[in-house]
Protein backbone atom coordinates (compact mmCIF):
# COMPACT_ATOMS: atom_id res chain seq x y z
CA UNK A 1 0.00 0.00 0.00
CA UNK A 2 2.89 2.38 0.49
CA UNK A 3 4.35 2.36 -3.01
CA UNK A 4 3.54 5.50 -5.03
CA UNK A 5 1.98 4.62 -8.35
CA UNK A 6 1.26 8.14 -9.52
CA UNK A 7 3.32 11.12 -8.46
CA UNK A 8 2.19 14.59 -9.37
CA UNK A 9 4.71 17.37 -8.86
CA UNK A 10 3.96 21.09 -8.99
CA UNK A 11 1.35 20.65 -11.66
CA UNK A 12 -0.25 23.82 -13.01
CA UNK A 13 -2.73 24.43 -15.76
CA UNK A 14 -3.82 27.78 -17.14
CA UNK A 15 -6.36 27.57 -19.94
CA UNK A 16 -6.19 29.86 -22.97
CA UNK A 17 -8.98 32.00 -21.56
CA UNK A 18 -6.75 32.73 -18.58
CA UNK A 19 -8.52 30.41 -16.13
CA UNK A 20 -6.06 28.96 -13.65
CA UNK A 21 -7.54 25.52 -13.16
CA UNK A 22 -4.62 24.06 -11.23
CA UNK A 23 -2.03 25.84 -9.13
CA UNK A 24 1.11 23.92 -8.23
CA UNK A 25 -0.61 20.73 -7.30
CA UNK A 26 1.51 17.95 -5.81
CA UNK A 27 0.00 14.63 -4.86
CA UNK A 28 1.11 11.02 -4.58
CA UNK A 29 -1.29 8.20 -5.20
CA UNK A 30 -0.45 4.85 -3.70
CA UNK A 31 -0.72 1.51 -5.42
CA UNK A 32 -3.93 -0.29 -4.64
CA UNK A 33 -5.73 2.52 -2.84
CA UNK A 34 -9.03 4.25 -3.48
CA UNK A 35 -8.51 7.98 -3.43
CA UNK A 36 -11.53 10.25 -3.48
CA UNK A 37 -11.13 13.79 -4.74
CA UNK A 38 -13.71 16.11 -3.32
CA UNK A 39 -14.28 19.64 -4.42
CA UNK A 40 -16.96 22.04 -5.54
CA UNK A 41 -17.74 22.56 -9.23
CA UNK A 42 -14.84 24.11 -11.09
CA UNK A 43 -12.33 23.20 -8.39
CA UNK A 44 -9.98 21.55 -10.89
CA UNK A 45 -10.75 17.87 -10.31
CA UNK A 46 -11.54 17.05 -13.92
CA UNK A 47 -8.58 19.09 -15.18
CA UNK A 48 -6.27 17.09 -12.93
CA UNK A 49 -7.64 13.78 -14.19
CA UNK A 50 -7.61 14.96 -17.81
CA UNK A 51 -3.94 15.89 -17.58
CA UNK A 52 -2.94 12.50 -16.18
CA UNK A 53 -4.95 10.74 -18.90
CA UNK A 54 -3.50 12.87 -21.72
CA UNK A 55 -6.59 14.83 -22.73
CA UNK A 56 -5.31 18.18 -21.46
CA UNK A 57 -1.73 19.42 -21.76
CA UNK A 58 -0.24 20.73 -18.51
CA UNK A 59 1.16 24.27 -18.43
CA UNK A 60 3.95 23.23 -16.07
CA UNK A 61 4.89 20.48 -13.68
CA UNK A 62 5.42 16.77 -14.02
CA UNK A 63 3.39 13.62 -13.61
CA UNK A 64 4.84 10.11 -13.42
CA UNK A 65 2.73 6.99 -13.69
CA UNK A 66 4.49 3.84 -12.51
CA UNK A 67 7.82 5.56 -13.12
CA UNK A 68 6.97 6.73 -16.64
CA UNK A 69 6.52 10.35 -17.67
CA UNK A 70 3.00 11.06 -18.96
CA UNK A 71 4.25 13.12 -21.90
CA UNK A 72 7.51 11.47 -22.93
CA UNK A 73 6.36 7.90 -22.29
CA UNK A 74 2.68 8.44 -23.08
CA UNK A 75 2.22 5.00 -24.59
CA UNK A 76 3.34 3.27 -21.39
CA UNK A 77 1.38 5.52 -19.02
CA UNK A 78 -1.86 5.67 -20.98
CA UNK A 79 -2.03 1.93 -21.56
CA UNK A 80 -2.13 1.45 -17.77
CA UNK A 81 -5.03 3.86 -17.32
CA UNK A 82 -8.76 3.48 -17.74
CA UNK A 83 -10.96 6.57 -17.68
CA UNK A 84 -14.66 6.92 -17.00
CA UNK A 85 -15.55 10.47 -17.95
CA UNK A 86 -18.14 12.64 -16.31
CA UNK A 87 -20.30 13.22 -19.38
CA UNK A 88 -22.15 10.42 -21.15
CA UNK A 89 -20.08 10.77 -24.30
CA UNK A 90 -20.63 7.74 -26.46
CA UNK A 91 -20.88 6.73 -30.08
CA UNK A 92 -24.68 6.49 -30.03
CA UNK A 93 -25.15 4.48 -33.20
CA UNK A 94 -22.86 1.58 -32.29
CA UNK A 95 -23.75 -1.50 -30.28
CA UNK A 96 -22.63 -1.96 -26.69
CA UNK A 97 -20.28 -4.78 -27.65
CA UNK A 98 -18.65 -2.85 -30.49
CA UNK A 99 -18.29 0.24 -28.35
CA UNK A 100 -16.43 -1.66 -25.66
CA UNK A 101 -14.30 -3.61 -28.16
CA UNK A 102 -13.39 -0.35 -29.90
CA UNK A 103 -11.86 1.03 -26.72
CA UNK A 104 -9.88 -2.16 -26.16
CA UNK A 105 -8.41 -1.79 -29.65
CA UNK A 106 -7.57 1.87 -29.11
CA UNK A 107 -5.49 0.87 -26.11
CA UNK A 108 -3.42 -1.44 -28.30
CA UNK A 109 -4.85 -4.76 -27.20
CA UNK A 110 -5.76 -7.60 -29.58
CA UNK A 111 -9.48 -8.38 -29.74
CA UNK A 112 -10.64 -10.68 -26.93
CA UNK A 113 -14.40 -11.29 -27.11
CA UNK A 114 -14.26 -13.64 -24.11
CA UNK A 115 -12.82 -10.93 -21.90
CA UNK A 116 -15.28 -8.32 -23.16
CA UNK A 117 -18.04 -10.82 -22.39
CA UNK A 118 -16.83 -11.19 -18.81
CA UNK A 119 -16.67 -7.41 -18.32
CA UNK A 120 -20.18 -6.95 -19.71
CA UNK A 121 -21.52 -9.75 -17.54
CA UNK A 122 -19.98 -8.26 -14.42
CA UNK A 123 -21.68 -4.96 -15.18
CA UNK A 124 -25.02 -6.66 -16.00
CA UNK A 125 -24.80 -5.49 -19.61
CA UNK A 126 -24.46 -8.81 -21.39
CA UNK A 127 -28.10 -9.02 -22.40
CA UNK A 128 -27.76 -5.53 -23.93
CA UNK A 129 -24.62 -6.32 -25.92
CA UNK A 130 -26.33 -5.98 -29.30
CA UNK A 131 -28.33 -2.90 -28.38
CA UNK A 132 -27.43 0.40 -29.93
CA UNK A 133 -26.25 2.90 -27.34
CA UNK A 134 -29.00 5.40 -27.83
CA UNK A 135 -31.55 2.74 -26.85
CA UNK A 136 -30.08 2.52 -23.35
CA UNK A 137 -31.02 4.41 -20.20
CA UNK A 138 -28.64 6.89 -18.60
CA UNK A 139 -27.61 4.44 -15.88
CA UNK A 140 -26.79 1.78 -18.46
CA UNK A 141 -24.80 4.21 -20.56
CA UNK A 142 -22.74 4.98 -17.51
CA UNK A 143 -22.07 1.29 -17.04
CA UNK A 144 -21.02 1.07 -20.68
CA UNK A 145 -18.51 3.85 -19.99
CA UNK A 146 -17.15 1.78 -17.10
CA UNK A 147 -17.00 -1.33 -19.30
CA UNK A 148 -15.07 0.66 -21.89
CA UNK A 149 -12.62 1.87 -19.27
CA UNK A 150 -12.05 -1.73 -18.12
CA UNK A 151 -11.83 -3.22 -21.61
CA UNK A 152 -8.02 -3.20 -21.69
CA UNK A 153 -7.45 -4.36 -18.09
CA UNK A 154 -6.04 -1.10 -16.74
CA UNK A 155 -4.16 -1.10 -13.43
CA UNK A 156 -5.35 2.44 -12.69
CA UNK A 157 -8.94 3.55 -13.01
CA UNK A 158 -10.14 7.13 -12.98
CA UNK A 159 -13.81 7.64 -12.26
CA UNK A 160 -14.94 11.20 -12.83
CA UNK A 161 -18.24 11.59 -10.98
CA UNK A 162 -19.16 7.95 -11.62
CA UNK A 163 -22.50 8.05 -9.90
CA UNK A 164 -23.79 11.46 -11.02
CA UNK A 165 -27.43 11.00 -12.00
CA UNK A 166 -27.47 7.34 -10.97
CA UNK A 167 -30.20 6.00 -8.71
CA UNK A 168 -29.46 4.91 -5.15
CA UNK A 169 -29.54 1.18 -5.82
CA UNK A 170 -27.24 1.35 -8.81
CA UNK A 171 -24.92 3.64 -6.89
CA UNK A 172 -24.51 1.02 -4.18
CA UNK A 173 -23.93 -1.62 -6.87
CA UNK A 174 -21.20 0.55 -8.31
CA UNK A 175 -19.55 0.94 -4.94
CA UNK A 176 -19.43 -2.83 -4.72
CA UNK A 177 -17.92 -3.05 -8.20
CA UNK A 178 -15.30 -0.46 -7.25
CA UNK A 179 -14.44 -2.40 -4.11
CA UNK A 180 -14.17 -5.62 -6.14
CA UNK A 181 -11.84 -3.89 -8.59
CA UNK A 182 -9.63 -2.67 -5.80
CA UNK A 183 -9.46 -6.20 -4.45
CA UNK A 184 -8.26 -7.33 -7.87
CA UNK A 185 -5.38 -4.87 -7.53
CA UNK A 186 -6.66 -1.85 -9.43
CA UNK A 187 -5.79 1.59 -8.05
CA UNK A 188 -8.84 3.82 -8.14
CA UNK A 189 -9.13 7.59 -8.18
CA UNK A 190 -12.61 9.01 -8.13
CA UNK A 191 -14.03 12.47 -8.02
CA UNK A 192 -17.38 12.99 -6.51
CA UNK A 193 -19.92 15.46 -5.32
CA UNK A 194 -21.50 12.89 -3.06
CA UNK A 195 -19.53 13.01 0.10
CA UNK A 196 -21.22 9.89 1.38
CA UNK A 197 -19.63 8.16 -1.59
CA UNK A 198 -16.14 9.12 -0.46
CA UNK A 199 -17.09 8.23 3.07
CA UNK A 200 -18.34 4.83 1.99
CA UNK A 201 -15.53 3.63 -0.25
CA UNK A 202 -12.39 5.79 -0.10
CA UNK A 203 -9.20 5.03 1.79
CA UNK A 204 -7.88 8.55 1.42
CA UNK A 205 -9.55 11.81 0.64
CA UNK A 206 -8.09 14.83 -1.16
CA UNK A 207 -10.04 18.06 -0.98
CA UNK A 208 -9.52 20.41 -3.93
CA UNK A 209 -10.67 23.99 -4.07
CA UNK A 210 -9.74 26.77 -6.51
CA UNK A 211 -7.12 24.60 -8.20
CA UNK A 212 -5.30 23.76 -4.99
CA UNK A 213 -5.26 20.70 -2.80
CA UNK A 214 -6.30 21.87 0.64
CA UNK A 215 -5.88 18.60 2.42
CA UNK A 216 -5.02 14.98 1.70
CA UNK A 217 -5.42 12.45 4.44
CA UNK A 218 -6.64 9.02 5.37
CA UNK A 219 -10.39 9.27 5.52
CA UNK A 220 -10.52 8.03 9.09
CA UNK A 221 -7.77 10.39 10.25
CA UNK A 222 -9.56 13.27 8.61
CA UNK A 223 -12.76 12.35 10.36
CA UNK A 224 -10.94 12.00 13.68
CA UNK A 225 -8.91 15.16 13.32
CA UNK A 226 -11.54 17.44 11.97
CA UNK A 227 -14.51 15.74 13.43
CA UNK A 228 -16.55 17.39 16.15
CA UNK A 229 -19.30 15.76 18.05
CA UNK A 230 -22.45 17.34 19.24
CA UNK A 231 -24.53 16.41 22.23
CA UNK A 232 -28.17 17.41 22.12
CA UNK A 233 -29.87 17.75 25.44
CA UNK A 234 -33.67 17.81 25.35
CA UNK A 235 -35.35 19.43 28.33
CA UNK A 236 -38.70 18.78 29.94
CA UNK A 237 -39.48 22.46 30.33
CA UNK A 238 -38.58 25.53 28.33
CA UNK A 239 -35.71 27.73 29.45
CA UNK A 240 -35.73 31.32 28.23
CA UNK A 241 -31.96 31.76 28.18
CA UNK A 242 -28.87 29.71 28.80
CA UNK A 243 -28.30 29.98 32.55
CA UNK A 244 -25.30 32.06 33.65
CA UNK A 245 -23.58 29.12 35.31
CA UNK A 246 -23.54 27.23 31.99
CA UNK A 247 -22.02 30.06 29.96
CA UNK A 248 -18.53 28.52 30.15
CA UNK A 249 -19.71 25.69 27.89
CA UNK A 250 -20.08 25.96 24.11
CA UNK A 251 -23.86 25.73 24.18
CA UNK A 252 -26.60 26.69 21.77
CA UNK A 253 -30.24 27.03 22.69
CA UNK A 254 -32.73 25.77 20.15
CA UNK A 255 -35.46 27.95 18.69
CA UNK A 256 -38.20 26.28 20.68
CA UNK A 257 -36.16 26.76 23.88
CA UNK A 258 -36.53 23.07 24.64
CA UNK A 259 -33.06 21.79 23.87
CA UNK A 260 -29.41 22.67 24.28
CA UNK A 261 -26.67 21.58 21.87
CA UNK A 262 -23.14 21.12 23.17
CA UNK A 263 -20.23 20.90 20.71
CA UNK A 264 -17.07 19.18 21.87
CA UNK A 265 -13.82 17.90 20.47
CA UNK A 266 -13.49 14.14 20.50
CA UNK A 267 -9.69 14.39 20.42
CA UNK A 268 -9.51 16.12 23.81
CA UNK A 269 -8.70 14.17 26.93
CA UNK A 270 -11.72 15.62 28.69
CA UNK A 271 -14.86 16.30 26.79
CA UNK A 272 -16.53 18.10 29.69
CA UNK A 273 -19.73 16.12 29.38
CA UNK A 274 -19.80 14.90 32.99
CA UNK A 275 -19.33 18.41 34.33
CA UNK A 276 -21.92 19.83 31.99
CA UNK A 277 -24.56 17.32 33.03
CA UNK A 278 -23.72 17.93 36.68
CA UNK A 279 -24.10 21.70 36.21
CA UNK A 280 -27.37 21.27 34.35
CA UNK A 281 -28.75 19.23 37.22
CA UNK A 282 -27.53 21.84 39.71
CA UNK A 283 -29.46 24.45 37.72
CA UNK A 284 -32.59 22.46 38.29
CA UNK A 285 -33.17 21.72 34.61
CA UNK A 286 -34.77 18.34 34.00
CA UNK A 287 -33.46 16.17 31.21
CA UNK A 288 -35.81 14.48 28.81
CA UNK A 289 -33.39 12.89 26.34
CA UNK A 290 -29.77 12.89 25.16
CA UNK A 291 -28.51 12.44 21.60
CA UNK A 292 -25.01 12.58 20.15
CA UNK A 293 -24.24 13.41 16.57
CA UNK A 294 -20.92 12.96 14.75
CA UNK A 295 -19.87 15.41 12.05
CA UNK A 296 -19.77 13.79 8.64
CA UNK A 297 -17.20 14.20 5.94
CA UNK A 298 -19.68 16.55 4.35
CA UNK A 299 -19.49 19.02 7.23
CA UNK A 300 -15.71 18.75 7.30
CA UNK A 301 -15.62 19.38 3.60
CA UNK A 302 -17.88 22.41 3.81
CA UNK A 303 -15.79 23.83 6.64
CA UNK A 304 -12.54 23.29 4.77
CA UNK A 305 -13.79 24.88 1.57
CA UNK A 306 -15.29 27.82 3.42
CA UNK A 307 -12.08 28.44 5.35
CA UNK A 308 -10.05 28.17 2.17
CA UNK A 309 -12.29 30.65 0.37
CA UNK A 310 -12.04 33.11 3.25
CA UNK A 311 -8.26 32.99 3.24
Amino acid at each position, binding site marked *: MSEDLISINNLSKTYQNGLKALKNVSLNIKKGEILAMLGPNGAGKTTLISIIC*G*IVTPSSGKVDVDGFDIIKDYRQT*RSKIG*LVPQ*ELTLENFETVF*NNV*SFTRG*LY*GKAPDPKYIESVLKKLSLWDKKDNILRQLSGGMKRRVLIAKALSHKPSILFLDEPTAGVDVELRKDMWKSVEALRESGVTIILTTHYIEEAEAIADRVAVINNGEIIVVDQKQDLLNKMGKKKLRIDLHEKTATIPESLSKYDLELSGNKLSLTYSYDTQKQRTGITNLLQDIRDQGLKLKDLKTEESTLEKIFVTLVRENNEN
Partner: protein
Amino acid sequence: MRINYYGFRAIYLHEMDRFRRTLLQSLISPVLSTSLYFIVFGSVIGNYVQNIDGISYGSYIVPGLIMLTLLTQSISNTSFGIFFPKFNGSLYEILAAPISTFEMVLAFVGAGATKTLIIGAVILATSNFFVEVSILHPLLMVFLLVLVAFTFALFGFLIGLLSSNFEQMSIIPTLVITPMVFLGGSLYSLDMLPPFWQMVTYFNPVVYLINGLRFSFYGASDFNIWISIASMIFFLVLCISVVAYVLKKGYTIKS
Protein backbone atom coordinates in the same frame (compact mmCIF):
# COMPACT_ATOMS: atom_id res chain seq x y z
CA MET B 1 4.47 -0.86 -27.74
CA ARG B 2 6.24 1.11 -30.45
CA ILE B 3 3.40 1.10 -32.94
CA ASN B 4 -0.21 0.87 -31.84
CA TYR B 5 -1.41 -1.39 -34.64
CA TYR B 6 -4.61 -2.38 -32.85
CA GLY B 7 -5.41 1.25 -32.12
CA PHE B 8 -5.03 2.14 -35.78
CA ARG B 9 -7.12 -0.88 -36.73
CA ALA B 10 -9.85 0.03 -34.24
CA ILE B 11 -10.32 3.53 -35.67
CA TYR B 12 -10.04 2.35 -39.27
CA LEU B 13 -12.60 -0.44 -38.85
CA HIS B 14 -14.88 1.77 -36.80
CA GLU B 15 -14.93 4.31 -39.63
CA MET B 16 -15.51 1.62 -42.23
CA ASP B 17 -18.34 0.32 -40.11
CA ARG B 18 -19.94 3.76 -40.21
CA PHE B 19 -19.70 3.54 -44.00
CA ARG B 20 -21.49 0.18 -43.91
CA ARG B 21 -24.22 1.55 -41.65
CA THR B 22 -24.82 4.48 -43.96
CA LEU B 23 -24.41 2.47 -47.14
CA LEU B 24 -27.49 3.98 -48.71
CA GLN B 25 -26.31 7.57 -48.49
CA SER B 26 -22.62 6.72 -48.90
CA LEU B 27 -22.84 4.61 -52.00
CA ILE B 28 -26.20 4.86 -53.63
CA SER B 29 -26.52 8.63 -53.68
CA PRO B 30 -23.22 9.33 -55.52
CA VAL B 31 -24.00 6.51 -57.96
CA LEU B 32 -27.46 7.92 -58.56
CA SER B 33 -26.29 11.48 -59.06
CA THR B 34 -23.51 10.38 -61.41
CA SER B 35 -25.99 8.31 -63.41
CA LEU B 36 -28.15 11.42 -63.75
CA TYR B 37 -25.15 13.33 -65.10
CA PHE B 38 -24.58 10.61 -67.68
CA ILE B 39 -28.20 10.62 -68.74
CA VAL B 40 -28.51 14.42 -68.96
CA PHE B 41 -25.05 15.43 -70.12
CA GLY B 42 -23.73 12.27 -71.69
CA SER B 43 -26.77 10.99 -73.56
CA VAL B 44 -28.95 14.05 -74.14
CA ILE B 45 -26.56 16.99 -74.51
CA GLY B 46 -23.75 14.75 -75.72
CA ASN B 47 -25.66 14.09 -78.93
CA TYR B 48 -25.32 17.78 -79.83
CA VAL B 49 -21.63 18.09 -78.91
CA GLN B 50 -18.88 17.13 -81.26
CA ASN B 51 -16.16 14.71 -80.22
CA ILE B 52 -13.47 16.33 -78.08
CA ASP B 53 -9.87 15.28 -78.81
CA GLY B 54 -11.37 12.40 -80.74
CA ILE B 55 -13.35 11.17 -77.75
CA SER B 56 -17.14 11.10 -77.62
CA TYR B 57 -18.59 13.64 -75.19
CA GLY B 58 -20.12 10.98 -72.92
CA SER B 59 -16.79 9.23 -72.49
CA TYR B 60 -14.93 12.54 -72.21
CA ILE B 61 -16.78 13.55 -69.03
CA VAL B 62 -16.18 10.22 -67.17
CA PRO B 63 -12.86 11.25 -65.51
CA GLY B 64 -14.35 14.64 -64.54
CA LEU B 65 -17.36 13.03 -62.92
CA ILE B 66 -15.22 10.52 -61.06
CA MET B 67 -13.06 13.38 -59.83
CA LEU B 68 -16.14 15.35 -58.74
CA THR B 69 -17.28 12.40 -56.64
CA LEU B 70 -13.80 11.65 -55.36
CA LEU B 71 -13.25 15.17 -54.11
CA THR B 72 -16.64 15.72 -52.50
CA GLN B 73 -16.83 12.22 -50.98
CA SER B 74 -13.32 12.10 -49.55
CA ILE B 75 -13.84 15.51 -47.97
CA SER B 76 -17.23 14.71 -46.50
CA ASN B 77 -16.31 11.20 -45.29
CA THR B 78 -13.29 12.26 -43.31
CA SER B 79 -14.62 15.59 -42.13
CA PHE B 80 -17.64 13.85 -40.59
CA GLY B 81 -15.41 11.07 -39.30
CA ILE B 82 -13.47 13.45 -37.07
CA PHE B 83 -16.24 15.98 -36.50
CA PHE B 84 -18.72 13.50 -34.97
CA PRO B 85 -16.58 12.29 -32.08
CA LYS B 86 -15.57 15.90 -31.51
CA PHE B 87 -19.21 16.96 -31.55
CA ASN B 88 -20.55 14.22 -29.25
CA GLY B 89 -17.51 14.26 -26.99
CA SER B 90 -16.39 10.69 -27.58
CA LEU B 91 -13.09 11.97 -28.96
CA TYR B 92 -11.83 11.96 -25.36
CA GLU B 93 -11.01 8.28 -25.57
CA ILE B 94 -8.92 8.65 -28.68
CA LEU B 95 -7.01 11.49 -27.03
CA ALA B 96 -6.52 9.41 -23.87
CA ALA B 97 -5.44 6.28 -25.76
CA PRO B 98 -1.82 5.29 -26.24
CA ILE B 99 -2.00 6.15 -29.93
CA SER B 100 0.18 8.68 -31.72
CA THR B 101 -1.27 11.62 -33.61
CA PHE B 102 0.16 10.17 -36.81
CA GLU B 103 -1.53 6.80 -36.27
CA MET B 104 -4.83 8.50 -35.48
CA VAL B 105 -4.77 10.73 -38.57
CA LEU B 106 -3.66 7.86 -40.79
CA ALA B 107 -6.56 5.70 -39.56
CA PHE B 108 -9.20 8.39 -40.15
CA VAL B 109 -7.75 9.48 -43.49
CA GLY B 110 -7.04 5.91 -44.59
CA ALA B 111 -10.63 4.91 -43.91
CA GLY B 112 -11.96 8.04 -45.65
CA ALA B 113 -9.77 7.37 -48.68
CA THR B 114 -10.74 3.68 -48.80
CA LYS B 115 -14.44 4.53 -48.80
CA THR B 116 -13.90 7.10 -51.51
CA LEU B 117 -11.97 4.67 -53.68
CA ILE B 118 -14.74 2.11 -53.33
CA ILE B 119 -17.25 4.73 -54.43
CA GLY B 120 -14.94 5.78 -57.28
CA ALA B 121 -14.68 2.17 -58.50
CA VAL B 122 -18.45 1.77 -58.37
CA ILE B 123 -18.93 4.95 -60.39
CA LEU B 124 -16.36 3.82 -62.94
CA ALA B 125 -18.28 0.56 -63.26
CA THR B 126 -21.58 2.45 -63.53
CA SER B 127 -20.26 4.69 -66.28
CA ASN B 128 -19.60 1.57 -68.35
CA PHE B 129 -23.35 1.08 -68.56
CA PHE B 130 -23.84 4.46 -70.19
CA VAL B 131 -20.77 5.12 -72.29
CA GLU B 132 -17.71 3.44 -73.69
CA VAL B 133 -14.76 3.84 -71.31
CA SER B 134 -11.21 2.89 -72.15
CA ILE B 135 -8.28 3.17 -69.77
CA LEU B 136 -4.99 3.74 -71.52
CA HIS B 137 -2.77 3.89 -68.42
CA PRO B 138 -4.48 1.85 -65.66
CA LEU B 139 -1.56 2.03 -63.22
CA LEU B 140 -1.36 5.78 -63.60
CA MET B 141 -5.11 5.98 -63.06
CA VAL B 142 -4.91 3.97 -59.83
CA PHE B 143 -1.97 6.07 -58.63
CA LEU B 144 -3.83 9.31 -59.32
CA LEU B 145 -7.05 8.11 -57.71
CA VAL B 146 -5.24 6.96 -54.56
CA LEU B 147 -3.25 10.19 -54.39
CA VAL B 148 -6.34 12.37 -54.79
CA ALA B 149 -8.42 10.27 -52.37
CA PHE B 150 -5.75 10.55 -49.65
CA THR B 151 -5.04 14.21 -50.25
CA PHE B 152 -8.65 15.29 -50.09
CA ALA B 153 -9.44 12.95 -47.22
CA LEU B 154 -6.70 14.79 -45.37
CA PHE B 155 -8.21 18.09 -46.45
CA GLY B 156 -11.56 16.85 -45.14
CA PHE B 157 -9.92 15.89 -41.85
CA LEU B 158 -8.67 19.46 -41.60
CA ILE B 159 -12.15 20.85 -42.25
CA GLY B 160 -13.66 18.55 -39.62
CA LEU B 161 -10.95 19.51 -37.18
CA LEU B 162 -11.44 23.24 -37.63
CA SER B 163 -15.24 23.29 -37.87
CA SER B 164 -17.19 23.98 -34.74
CA ASN B 165 -20.65 23.41 -36.22
CA PHE B 166 -22.42 21.69 -39.09
CA GLU B 167 -22.72 24.87 -41.11
CA GLN B 168 -18.97 25.37 -41.21
CA MET B 169 -18.61 21.74 -42.27
CA SER B 170 -20.55 22.30 -45.45
CA ILE B 171 -19.22 25.74 -46.38
CA ILE B 172 -16.01 24.66 -48.08
CA PRO B 173 -17.42 21.64 -49.96
CA THR B 174 -20.42 23.64 -51.18
CA LEU B 175 -18.90 27.03 -51.81
CA VAL B 176 -15.40 26.08 -52.87
CA ILE B 177 -15.04 22.49 -54.04
CA THR B 178 -18.19 22.05 -56.12
CA PRO B 179 -17.67 25.28 -58.13
CA MET B 180 -13.99 24.47 -58.57
CA VAL B 181 -14.84 21.06 -60.01
CA PHE B 182 -17.55 22.40 -62.32
CA LEU B 183 -15.29 25.22 -63.50
CA GLY B 184 -12.32 22.86 -63.66
CA GLY B 185 -13.13 21.34 -67.01
CA SER B 186 -14.97 18.31 -65.71
CA LEU B 187 -17.64 18.66 -68.41
CA TYR B 188 -15.68 20.46 -71.15
CA SER B 189 -12.26 21.04 -72.59
CA LEU B 190 -10.53 24.30 -71.69
CA ASP B 191 -10.20 25.05 -75.43
CA MET B 192 -13.96 25.55 -75.51
CA LEU B 193 -13.73 28.54 -73.12
CA PRO B 194 -13.16 32.16 -74.20
CA PRO B 195 -9.47 33.19 -73.69
CA PHE B 196 -10.17 35.26 -70.55
CA TRP B 197 -11.91 32.38 -68.72
CA GLN B 198 -9.19 30.03 -69.86
CA MET B 199 -6.71 32.29 -68.06
CA VAL B 200 -8.84 32.26 -64.92
CA THR B 201 -9.09 28.48 -65.06
CA TYR B 202 -5.33 28.10 -64.86
CA PHE B 203 -5.54 29.28 -61.24
CA ASN B 204 -8.01 26.53 -60.39
CA PRO B 205 -5.98 23.58 -59.01
CA VAL B 206 -8.78 21.11 -59.76
CA VAL B 207 -8.19 21.63 -63.49
CA TYR B 208 -4.87 19.85 -63.19
CA LEU B 209 -6.40 16.94 -61.26
CA ILE B 210 -9.15 16.36 -63.82
CA ASN B 211 -6.79 16.65 -66.76
CA GLY B 212 -4.35 14.27 -65.11
CA LEU B 213 -7.05 11.66 -64.65
CA ARG B 214 -8.33 12.20 -68.19
CA PHE B 215 -4.82 11.64 -69.50
CA SER B 216 -4.69 8.25 -67.72
CA PHE B 217 -7.95 7.31 -69.45
CA TYR B 218 -7.58 8.60 -72.97
CA GLY B 219 -4.05 9.99 -73.25
CA ALA B 220 -5.62 13.40 -73.87
CA SER B 221 -5.01 16.36 -71.58
CA ASP B 222 -4.85 20.15 -71.72
CA PHE B 223 -1.54 19.96 -69.78
CA ASN B 224 1.54 17.84 -69.37
CA ILE B 225 0.81 14.97 -66.96
CA TRP B 226 3.76 15.97 -64.72
CA ILE B 227 2.17 19.33 -64.04
CA SER B 228 -0.88 17.45 -62.78
CA ILE B 229 1.12 15.08 -60.59
CA ALA B 230 3.28 17.89 -59.21
CA SER B 231 0.23 19.98 -58.31
CA MET B 232 -1.38 17.02 -56.51
CA ILE B 233 1.76 16.30 -54.52
CA PHE B 234 2.09 19.98 -53.68
CA PHE B 235 -1.43 20.04 -52.29
CA LEU B 236 -0.83 16.81 -50.35
CA VAL B 237 2.29 18.23 -48.70
CA LEU B 238 0.40 21.43 -47.93
CA CYS B 239 -2.41 19.48 -46.24
CA ILE B 240 0.04 17.35 -44.24
CA SER B 241 1.84 20.48 -43.01
CA VAL B 242 -1.33 22.30 -41.99
CA VAL B 243 -2.84 19.26 -40.24
CA ALA B 244 0.43 18.64 -38.39
CA TYR B 245 0.56 22.29 -37.31
CA VAL B 246 -3.07 22.39 -36.17
CA LEU B 247 -2.78 19.14 -34.20
CA LYS B 248 0.46 20.25 -32.59
CA LYS B 249 -1.31 23.37 -31.40
CA GLY B 250 -4.12 21.11 -30.16
CA TYR B 251 -6.59 23.44 -31.81
CA THR B 252 -10.25 22.64 -31.01
CA ILE B 253 -9.55 19.15 -29.67
CA LYS B 254 -6.99 19.54 -26.91
CA SER B 255 -6.56 22.39 -24.45
